[in-house]
């Protein structure tokens, strides 16, 4: 079968646990990576809260999203971007996040959106 490798950008805009969209983005990321697609994740607005270290959602019967996201590099998903302004607005720094991420300006985010084959919002 011919190789159909595409670049995916997943844009995550929701805080974790409020709805299922954060989990769904993770499912899509891992599925695409399993099929050898190139996957990057961008956390925008409240989405940056998905990456916050130290989540303890056992009492609301959820799995800790930060720990699952921290495993992304194991699936060869190395490109994790966060909106610099969103971090700043929420009083957060890169060191508060559960995995290494690159902070991007709005202009740099526009470039990323334009350069990917498939851009999915969550």
């Amino acid at each position, binding site marked *: 079968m011919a190789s159909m490798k595409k670049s995916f950008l997943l844009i995550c805009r929701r805080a974790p646990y409020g709805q299922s969209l954060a989990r769904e983005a993770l499912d899509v990321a891992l599925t695409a990576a399993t099929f050898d697609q190139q996957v990057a994740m961008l956390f925008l607005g409240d989405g940056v809260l998905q990456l916050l270290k130290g989540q303890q959602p056992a009492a609301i019967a959820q799995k800790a999203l930060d720990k699952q996201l921290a495993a992304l590099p194991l699936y060869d998903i190395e490109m994790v971007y966060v909106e610099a302004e969103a971090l700043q607005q929420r009083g957060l720094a890169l060191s508060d996040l559960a995995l290494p991420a690159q902070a991007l300006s*709005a202009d740099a985010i*526009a470039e990323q959106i334009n350069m990917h*084959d498939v851009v999915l*919002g969550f």
Partner: protein
Amino acid sequence: MGTLHIVSKSPFASSALADCLRVCGEATILLIEDAVNAAIANNEWIEPLKRDGLMVYVLQSDCDARGLSQRIDSKFALTDYPGFVRLCCEHAPVTSWY
């Protein structure tokens, strides 16, 4: 070419349009469903939508449904379903904000 951003939520109820406008740079935006509210003449989203480098389309059927067709700012282009398809074919990538 360039990216087509399809927005489907009202800017008065969701961050979808604000998030899109913050990071889209120069782009084409199509407002559908409740996002057509952003194109009502004289509302506060008109100014950010008229900034340089943006081309804004509004889906006619969703304006008609809401009684808004005569109230859409004249700078924006109304489009029908075939136009919607054409926009999707002419742009890459196509992404949705909801």
